[in-house]
């Protein structure tokens, strides 16, 4: 990799060849390659809009290649709401530069000035008269291996015809009619595989009653064992599934984890070994003003993808090809090369769509599982799928968090000094980042040492500290971060990282401080927000929700609001939730208003806002990973319930478009404010606050009885 070139988006400076990004193809299309992949967020469609816009091509002339380690750019992982900001900015510059090169070449051929040229659907016109020359006839004369300079000026937003339009998703028709996912790639002669997972790091397989497993399979299967990695392989998927279903009960392990029930709760984190960091203002040795303090929590939560993780792998002619629904194919290739001790060039990783992942789930791990089997069974295509129980039992979870907010307010009730103190395990153990690993690597001979715990730096958006610094105008703010190093389960990136618990806590404090100051929650927030865009989303959401009709608290009927700017640098979102509380919370309506700068596909953004609101609501109200003894016990949808159709209210999602402003990552912005607005709505309905998520029936009953 080269180092960053100043002024270019990061993706472009590490992939400094135009042909890594774009290719004019014989069928009069342009192939645009991106390292970002489709995970249900519609980003590949949005990126195609950016390319078509800059190249002045109809959308059907743009073909997307997403996630290909051989031919596409390395853009690390599809994460952190960065795809439009980084890949989109790169594709825009590449296409603008390509257009300028093509125009220049065409002008030479036509012996005119580039200023005399226009282009329509890829065909050049001189002074408005179309000729024979097109992108495709001129493209072979250009050296596409050259590095992008970033010097070609993209179109002004006022000229946009495709960007800013509601373009339907390219991938949905297939998904609504038949095969569409990596799971659906079932080539002739494929061997299906399932795994028996090592119960935890360092656990050693003492015995496996293979005869019992084979009896369960019924049809002949192969049992592959390598140290503590076990796979069941065969041409009949039902047989390998039946084998895997009983395998755990026929296996004896040494060194199985023993998790105490208290460890599944966020409260356990306080006092555990931790790496401590202090960001922001020094601690005031003699603080003045009234102290307001409260502690909030969120338990371990799951990605809980609808599909169990799956991958295909084929090892033939000393080359390993992997098809995976992971979030980054270049990192996956590097990580698997390292585990299997193969040269990088001997591996190709290709993305195929899977179910939504919402962060680092089991996708990469399943890819290594499939690769291990494949290199040991050359010339057979291996299709390895996790079981539902594997997915719930062994995905890297969203970490539990404990958040204490300690605020000093002046006589007018205005916050003057704000401390966010956070206890959390790491939010990023992605393989290849230095803190993570692929799961099966631990089961192979010579397992890697346990990675040193680390968390994304606050300057880089933070992990546990994400959104812990108030966006409000408060003179002195600091974050005290305790990165807890001994969690009972593996944890990693889950949509919003620490922002959800932090925003839940921050916005609860804002409501409580407003109440103490005798102020309306909206007015109190607006008085502390100098950023006009933040004020605009809040005011707009409040107006849509009829905030001025909000009644007295404690009636069972609640209206709650919350605001956050994701990472304090990405999209702005304000959410108002109307709800009713009896023994449990009934959501009645959610209003979301966001500002994401220039919006590529408004309907796609609204879809993300709606989905983010539902997911935030589900985490706030229902979800907790249960664990005891050897591991996770919430292994199905009954023991890990998520928000159901009957619990989802109508949602109004609106986008305040600012085509003149840079695009801001929008995929995660609605999640945390929704959870926080529900917390505030429940507090309004009950007249007392619940500090711990999920806001379950048990916790509500406890407040009602108290």
């Amino acid at each position: 990799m080269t180092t960053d070139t100043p002024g270019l988006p990061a993706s472009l400076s590490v992939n400094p060849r135009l042909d890594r990004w774009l290719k004019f193809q014989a069928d009069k299309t342009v192939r645009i390659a991106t390292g970002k992949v489709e995970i249900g967020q519609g980003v590949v469609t949005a990126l195609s809009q950016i390319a078509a816009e800059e190249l002045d091509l109809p959308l059907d002339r743009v073909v997307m290649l997403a996630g290909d380690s051989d031919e596409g750019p390395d853009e690390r992982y599809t994460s952190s709401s960065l795809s439009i900001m980084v890949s989109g900015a790169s594709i825009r510059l590449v296409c603008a530069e390509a257009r300028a090169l093509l125009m220049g070449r065409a002008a030479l051929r036509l012996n005119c000035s580039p200023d005399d040229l226009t282009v329509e659907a890829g065909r050049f016109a001189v002074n408005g008269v179309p000729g024979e020359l097109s992108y495709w006839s001129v493209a072979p004369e250009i050296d596409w291996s050259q590095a992008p300079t970033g010097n070609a000026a993209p179109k002004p937003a006022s000229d946009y015809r495709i960007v800013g339009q509601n373009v339907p998703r390219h991938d949905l028709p297939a998904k609504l009619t038949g095969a569409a996912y990596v799971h659906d790639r079932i080539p002739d002669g494929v061997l299906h595989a399932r795994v028996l997972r090592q119960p935890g790091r360092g656990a050693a397989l003492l015995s496996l009653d293979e005869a019992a497993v084979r009896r369960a399979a019924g049809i002949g299967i192969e049992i592959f064992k390598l140290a503590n990695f076990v796979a069941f392989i065969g041409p009949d998927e039902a047989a390998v599934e039946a084998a895997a279903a009983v395998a755990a009960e026929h296996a004896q392990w040494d060194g199985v984890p023993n998790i105490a029930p208290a460890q599944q709760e966020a409260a356990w984190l306080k006092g555990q070994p931790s790496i401590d960091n202090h960001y922001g203002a020094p601690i005031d040795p003699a603080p003045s003003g009234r102290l307001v303090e409260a502690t909030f929590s969120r338990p371990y939560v799951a990605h809980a993808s609808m599909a169990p993780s799956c991958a295909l792998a084929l090892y033939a002619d000393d080359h390993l090809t992997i098809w995976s629904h992971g979030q980054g194919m270049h990192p996956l290739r590097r990580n698997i090369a390292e585990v299997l001790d193969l040269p990088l060039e001997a591996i190709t990783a290709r993305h195929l769509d899977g179910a939504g992942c919402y962060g680092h789930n089991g996708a990469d791990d399943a890819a290594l599982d499939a690769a291990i089997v494949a290199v040991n069974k050359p010339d057979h295509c291996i299709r390895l799928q996790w079981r539902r129980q594997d997915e719930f039992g062994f995905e890297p979870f969203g970490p539990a968090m404990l958040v204490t907010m300690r605020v000093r307010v002046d006589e007018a009730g205005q916050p003057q000094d704000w401390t966010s103190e956070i206890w959390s395990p790491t939010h990023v153990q992605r393989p290849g980042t230095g803190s993570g690993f692929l799961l099966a690597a631990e089961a192979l001979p010579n397992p890697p040492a346990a990675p040193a715990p680390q968390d994304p730096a606050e300057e880089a958006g933070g992990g546990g500290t994400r959104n812990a610094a108030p966006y409000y105008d408060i003179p002195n703010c600091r974050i005290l971060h305790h990165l807890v190093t001994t969690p009972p389960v593996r944890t990693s990136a889950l949509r919003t990282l620490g922002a959800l618990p932090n925003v839940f806590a921050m916005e609860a404090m804002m409501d409580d401080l407003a109440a103490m100051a005798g102020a309306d929650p909206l007015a109190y927030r607006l008085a502390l927000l100098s950023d006009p865009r933040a004020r605009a989303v809040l005011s707009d959401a409040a107006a849509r929700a009829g905030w001025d009709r909000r009644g007295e608290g404690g009636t069972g009927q609640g209206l709650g609001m919350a605001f956050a700017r994701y990472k304090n640098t990405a999209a702005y979102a304000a959410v108002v939730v109307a709800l009713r509380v009896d023994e449990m919370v009934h959501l009645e309506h959610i209003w979301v208003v966001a500002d994401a700068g220039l919006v590529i596909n408004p309907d796609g953004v609204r879809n993300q806002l709606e989905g983010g609101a539902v997911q935030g609501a589900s985490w706030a109200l229902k979800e907790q990973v249960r664990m005891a003894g050897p591991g996770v016990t919430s292994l199905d949808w009954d023991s890990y319930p998520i928000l159901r159709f009957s619990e989802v209210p109508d949602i109004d999602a609106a986008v305040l478009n600012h085509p003149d402003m840079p695009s801001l990552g929008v995929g995660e912005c609605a999640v945390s404010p929704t959870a926080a607005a529900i917390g505030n709505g429940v507090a309004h309905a009950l007249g007392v606050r619940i500090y711990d998520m999920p806001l379950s029936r048990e916790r509500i009953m406890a407040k009602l009885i108290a």
Partner: protein
Amino acid sequence: MAQSIEITVNGTAKQIDVPPSLPLIYLLRNEMGLKGTRYGCGLEQCGCCMVLIDDEPAYACTRTAESVAGQAVLTIEGLGTAADPHALQQAFLEEQAGQCGYCLSGILISAKALLDRNPNPSRSEIVEALDGHLCRCGAHTRIIKAIGRAAALLRGEEPA
């Protein structure tokens, strides 16, 4: 011992040998190439594998192939195609009702059964028909709207 059964899949009658207790989902996906019937949990909890058996929604992950002998199975492939979509598929595209889409084929199947017996369902009737389905991306409100839109299309009305 494999058993020979007759089964009608997406309108075509077939005579096939199935091993005992083979889950229907594997027959559909791996033997018949009907991969739109998706595996989600194998526990009748998520609805990704929903098919119609003699017009009634049923989980293909736990039903055995032999148990549907003599019956008619409809999968998403039998509903419509990308080139010639069913009104439900059309409405889902028009509403862009989906994100990752993994839950959608099962949901479309349950929606088909609903609209077959109730051409003008209320929101709560739609929600009740989808009670056996989960969606993790949060596309619920669009899905509910799309089913209402499909109902209107099938009634020959302009969707609201």
